[in-house]
């Protein structure tokens, strides 16, 4: 495997790991549920996506033939993450979980 691949893969993995971690940190640090909701939906999703790409790259580079099944998983995650976020937000609004005082505007509950 050419070194360049190795660097690319390493970079992809590290980025992915970083974003995953950031997502988790956000989950811990952000003040209320609605703000916390942002962290996984974006950071984590992206992080995992990056790791997937890393995997694709690694296996395609290391062995014969291309291996792209991870793409499917990534796409799946990108499709479902917003829905999970949406339905969780609905649940939270329904239960009227507390919001940080800074929040402007009001949630609905229908």
């Amino acid at each position: 495997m050419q070194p360049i691949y190795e660097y690319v893969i390493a970079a992809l993995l590290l980025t992915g790991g970083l974003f995953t971690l950031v997502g988790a940190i956000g989950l811990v640090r952000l003040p209320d549920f609605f703000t916390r909701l942002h962290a996984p939906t974006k950071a984590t999703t992206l992080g995992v996506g990056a790791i997937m790409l890393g995997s694709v790259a690694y296996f395609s580079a290391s062995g014969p033939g291309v291996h792209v099944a991870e793409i499917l998983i990534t796409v799946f995650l990108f499709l479902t993450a917003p829905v999970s976020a949406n339905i969780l937000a609905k649940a939270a609004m329904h239960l009227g979980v507390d919001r940080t005082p800074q929040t402007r505007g009001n949630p609905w509950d229908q």
Partner: protein
Amino acid sequence: MIADLPILSWALHITIGMVALAILLNVYRLLKGPDAPDRVLALDTLYINAIALIILLGIALDTRLYMESALLIAVMGFVGTVALAKYLKRGSVIE
């Protein structure tokens, strides 16, 4: 395979460490709450991180045999989250 790619294996282990740490943080949030949605959110994130972990495991072991497991976690995690969330606001999951 990985063994003779020093940088990659180093990066790999760092990444695995980060994901593992992320999982710990998720569990912290999951245990802390305060509200049910927080827990479900943490669980959902946990699932996604688990996917990452599995993929990384596959690389570390240099096998693609865990790809379907990762796919399955994605599917099941989604359905699980949806079900839990629906329970929270609707009570009856299937009706």
